[in-house]
């Protein structure tokens, strides 16, 4: 009798404790990030009950425009340095020249030689360059290239913390739209990427602080006729590109019959050459990636690395995530995107991993590939950054993946979502390959990637100190990292 009473008392105490725990004061839960995608509040409150800070929400539009994706026409179109043909400024000529220098090309190599190399490289690989872009590019001066700048993109969030506590892999990107395509108005995109070297946390924080500082500066001239924002941005770009140890050129062009071709080039010592498409699995989307497939085996063997945002495993050694450009290689491929009419994403078979981790692994492998991120996986229609007009009056629109627009539609800055709205890619009902993939569940994923990138920088600046141990850096940032698989 006494034992029964004690048992009832313990149970009652447990119930009371549970009630008090559930009724405790809680912050207003909002969506939280899980890799690139957003987790729903119901899931997230159990694992990471943290709201988006008010200073992030309140400042998100300005921060995005001035510190994440700079596309205001006062900068990209109407600032004489960003449209300059000089090799020392920030127009296409100056950016490409810097990229060659990062690749190891001597200063003595002339612009004419380098421009010819760029033309040959692009024209040799992409129909859009061979047929439209190169013929419209008079002479061998970079300044004559028919392009205009769409955006300067801060990708500090690409960084990961290595074993020594250094932050590696941040990038600065310059996005260009090729012009003169009257029949095909947006026929070729060029992205010049500067991958920054590994740096100690104090340096990285300094970079983050510099970007953060830009968000508060005016783009219009001050009383002295100076442009505070533009001047500071150029200083920062000078500092950052000087820290690059790799420069790449990514190109995406319309094929002759309405297909999309993708290519990657690397600037080397005196050359620019096509390179393998990394993170682009050479698979057939319509085929099930089951346990016997290359990718299925890879997913099982490297599950932990794939799900670790700070992984430093060298995937380059494995051909599975690399679309080799060399025709002599077995994984040689000619990467083309299915485009917005596509209806398929990568699917792993039910015999690959368990139900709890399969879709997370699948998502990371998929969303990190060029073709899926610029496609159905994020509900995008090829470009994350839209074209802009040639009158230089309007800035580029951004994809719903970036802005978090509830309908995922491309839109201007007014569509930037700072609350719990998100663009949701409806993967659940997509047609799936047969076999082991027939009954696999694909989770719908929601995105507000600019908010994630903003949060990444906020965490670097507000919740970390340079002397914090590497594990603290890893843990604080892991929810907001790009979770790149490479």
């Amino acid at each position: 009798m006494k034992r029964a009473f004690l048992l009832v008392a313990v149970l009652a105490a447990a119930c009371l404790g549970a009630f008090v725990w559930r009724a405790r004061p809680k912050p207003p839960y909002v969506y939280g990030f899980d890799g690139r995608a957003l987790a729903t509040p119901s899931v997230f409150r159990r694992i990471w009950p943290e709201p988006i800070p008010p200073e992030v929400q309140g400042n998100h539009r300005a921060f995005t425009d001035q510190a994440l994706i700079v596309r205001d026409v006062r900068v990209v179109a109407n600032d004489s340095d960003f449209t300059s043909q000089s090799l020392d400024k920030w127009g296409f000529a100056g950016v490409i020249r810097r990229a060659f220098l990062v690749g190891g090309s001597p200063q003595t190599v002339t612009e004419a030689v380098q421009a010819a190399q760029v033309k040959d490289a692009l024209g040799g690989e992409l129909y859009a360059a061979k047929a439209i872009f190169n013929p419209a590019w008079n002479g061998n001066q970079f300044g004559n290239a028919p392009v205009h700048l769409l955006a300067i993109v801060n990708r500090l969030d690409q960084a990961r913390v290595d074993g020594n506590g250094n932050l590696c892999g941040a990038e600065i990107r310059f996005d260009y739209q090729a012009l003169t395509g009257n029949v095909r108005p947006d026929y070729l995109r060029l992205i010049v990427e500067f991958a920054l070297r590994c740096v100690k946390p104090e340096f990285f924080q300094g970079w983050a602080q510099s970007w953060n500082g830009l968000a508060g500066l005016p783009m219009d001239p001050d009383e002295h006729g100076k442009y505070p924002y533009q001047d500071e941005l150029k200083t920062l770009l000078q500092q950052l590109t000087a820290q690059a140890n790799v420069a790449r050129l990514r190109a995406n062009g319309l094929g002759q019959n309405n297909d999309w071709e993708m290519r990657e080039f690397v600037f080397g010592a005196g050359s620019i050459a096509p390179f393998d498409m990394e993170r682009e699995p050479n698979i057939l989307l319509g085929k099930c990636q089951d346990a016997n497939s290359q990718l299925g085996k890879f997913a099982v063997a490297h599950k932990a690395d794939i799900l670790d945002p700070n992984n430093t495993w060298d995937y380059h050694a494995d051909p599975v995530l690399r679309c080799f450009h060399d025709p002599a290689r077995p994984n040689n491929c000619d990467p083309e995107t299915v485009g917005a009419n596509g209806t398929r994403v990568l699917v792993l078979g039910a015999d690959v991993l368990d139900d709890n981790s399969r879709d997370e692994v699948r998502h990371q492998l998929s969303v990190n590939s060029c073709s899926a991120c610029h496609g159905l996986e994020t509900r995008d229609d090829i470009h994350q950054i839209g074209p802009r007009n040639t009158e230089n009056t309007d800035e580029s629109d951004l994809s719903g993946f970036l802005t978090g627009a509830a309908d995922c539609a491309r839109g201007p800055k007014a569509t930037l979502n700072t609350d719990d709205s998100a663009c949701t890619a409806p993967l659940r009902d997509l047609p799936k390959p047969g076999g082991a993939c027939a009954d696999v569940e694909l989770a719908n994923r929601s995105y507000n990637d600019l908010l994630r990138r903003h949060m990444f920088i906020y965490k670097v600046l507000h919740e970390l100190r340079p002397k914090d141990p590497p594990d603290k850096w890893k843990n604080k940032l892991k929810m907001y990292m790009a979770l790149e698989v490479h």
Partner: protein
Amino acid sequence: MVDFWEVLGRMLTNDNFRGRLYRAFPKPTWYDTGQEAATLVNWGLKIPAGHYKKARNIVKDVVKDGPVSLQTLGEILMVLSSQHFRDNADQLAKAIQATVNTQGNSKLFYIGIGCMVLDGSVRVSFKNAIFDDVQFGNLSGLEQDALATLAGNTRVKELSYDACQEFWDIACLDEYNYYGPQAAYRVAGAPKDYLPGPHLHPIVQPYPPTTHAKGKGKKA
């Protein structure tokens, strides 16, 4: 359209069939062009009626299970009028036949070859082994594998580009799914001087029809 894809696909996989067509029209010459009526802006080729008959007699020996439209015969006669197209077709046929087995396949297989030569979006779907979504799901597994292999062949892709461009030019930008979001996006992002949409449906008389515009049931 679908019957033209089939005839083109069979031309590229059957040297005898292609040779018979070449021999039936041995000297490629350009046809005169004209308008069916002065009020219309569209132009057409003045192809003699005998050419259609001769072409049909050859085509019906390979397309045995149904009709072939006059439109398809006209397209075939048009492409045969170009020596460049013939040379390109020979090279494309060689590349295709060297890559996969092209004999004894289903009607849909030959339709698929003709379609992917003219439409890059279908070719990329095949390359990704996506068949159901473009209504080629009834191909056998072997046929699907063959088309996926062909679609991923760089030489086939380049020659297909040339084949489409010679006679269809801007229409090569049309897509199997004409008004997908990608096409709409291209137009939305276009500069002000961008003229056409991604696809205009061809018409043979002023639109809306005068009989309907002027009064119901009255003939013009």
